[in-house]
């Protein structure tokens, strides 16, 4: 059996936390939305994206030590975990697309709820929703994995430094026009304006590119992590 598959199976000995918890959280958020009725929890599907990020952090942070004890290499553990996250993203994306279709067909579950529809991002045909969700969930999972790797290698101080580093990079990108920085920081609508000029497909491409960056970065980080 290929080692990566062994790692995926290793993770799935405990499916409750992943993919269980992200979906349970989503279901809970949906239930709350239905109970309150109407427009109270717009774009609630975002919740599952956050949970995939958290799962990525956990699956590296907490599952690495025993995997090394089992005799896996860091390389295969990292790849196997990424494989797991991407697979779950693929399936989850399809389910989200399906639920979105049902939501549209039932006029928002008979209550005008827009839980599975997000303006710009998840509002198109089912295959676009599937693709964007798949890439988005994967990117966030892999992003979380990088945090997990940083934690394993440098501990909590490392994570703080990692966050600071990213803030600096973002600022550096925006810095050529200082004015942008302030409007960026103080106005989320600026982001919305800027992003609105890109189509959902472009954003999906950006997310995919970021996912690759995260994968490479996380791998480079975990290679020398000691346990």
């Amino acid at each position, binding site marked *: 059996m290929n080692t990566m598959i062994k790692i995926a199976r290793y993770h799935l000995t405990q499916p409750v936390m992943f993919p269980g918890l992200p979906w349970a959280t989503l279901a809970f958020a949906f239930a709350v939305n239905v109970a309150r009725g109407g427009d109270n929890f717009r774009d609630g599907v975002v919740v599952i994206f956050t949970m995939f990020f958290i799962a990525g952090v956990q699956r590296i942070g907490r599952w690495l030590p*025993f995997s090394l004890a089992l005799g896996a290499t860091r390389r295969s553990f990292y790849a196997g975990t990424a494989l797991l996250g991407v697979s779950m993203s693929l399936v989850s994306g399809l389910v989200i697309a399906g639920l979105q279709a049902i939501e549209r067909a039932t006029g928002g579950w008979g209550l005008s709820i827009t839980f599975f529809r997000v303006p710009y991002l998840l509002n198109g045909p089912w295959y676009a929703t599937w693709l964007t969700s798949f890439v988005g969930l994967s990117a966030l999972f892999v992003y979380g994995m990088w945090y997990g790797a940083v934690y394993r290698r440098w501990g909590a101080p490392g994570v703080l430094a990692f966050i600071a580093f990213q803030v600096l990079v973002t600022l550096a990108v925006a810095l050529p026009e200082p004015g942008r920085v302030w409007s960026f920081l103080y106005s989320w609508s600026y982001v919305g304006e800027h992003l609105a000029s890109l189509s959902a497909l472009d954003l999906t491409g950006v997310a995919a590119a970021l996912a690759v960056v995260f994968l490479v970065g996380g791998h480079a980080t975990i290679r020398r992590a000691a*346990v």
Partner: protein
Amino acid sequence: MTPVISVTGLTRRYRDQVALDDVSVTIGAGSITGLLGRNGAGKTTLLRILAGQEFPSSGSVRIFGLPPAENESVLRRLVLVREDQTYPDINVRHALRAASWFHPNWDSALASSLLDDFGVRANKAVKNLSRGQRSALGITIGLAARAAVTLFDEPYAGLDAVARQIFYDRLLADYADFPRTVLLSTHLIDEAAALFENVVVIDRGRVVLDTAADGLRGMVTTVSGPVLAVDSFTEGRPVWERRTLGSQASVVTVGQVSCEDRERARSLGLDLTPLSLQQLVVRASGWSAGAGYLATRTSA
């Protein structure tokens, strides 16, 4: 001896200390070696590096002729049981199943039997196990894996003397049926002394003793009795320590004691007590004069 583990000039430095300092040691195939020394001597660091879980600062480590870190062909044939192993959110059964996928020689029947011996229930979450039960789990994995290179790092935390004896007995029994290369680090030396063919003693990151265990037994003896008799008996023998109280003396002397020596001691009214392996290691670890002497006399 076919070397299975070859460590040459291994050094591991951290920001504020040197955990291992120019360590060189060779472990042969099919043997049980005791890795002995005080807490903090560097035993755990060495084992972690051997298992590829930590990286050297300098020097070389070869297992089956290859560096173990990130090397699947080596790691597949190796298992490290650590006292401080962290597990994810799984239960005992999951841990054993995962282990069975990664260790080609895994024996499920042995694993079940060991869990029974130690009284650990398979569907209990690992994080809910007591310290002793966690150690039992680690030992179960370590033994059932039947890995060609089996490393134990003080695997008995929280286990009482009876459970520890179960561990030693099961280890010996399985080792007899399925020989492998075992490296067992412990600070409870006398308990495990009879298991070892060889001992490696580490003190403050350095190897201070590396020799066959049987070569050490009876090597150092305490001679006690009347001062004059003691001095007469130990004349010409290297002496490590000399204590007197009134007309009595107690001297620690090096060198095997023959039958004639014993008879002579008895005729002089002297008492001869050999130092146990544990006492020897204690001396090797802190007593530089003794350690230096032992090293030159007994290096294999």
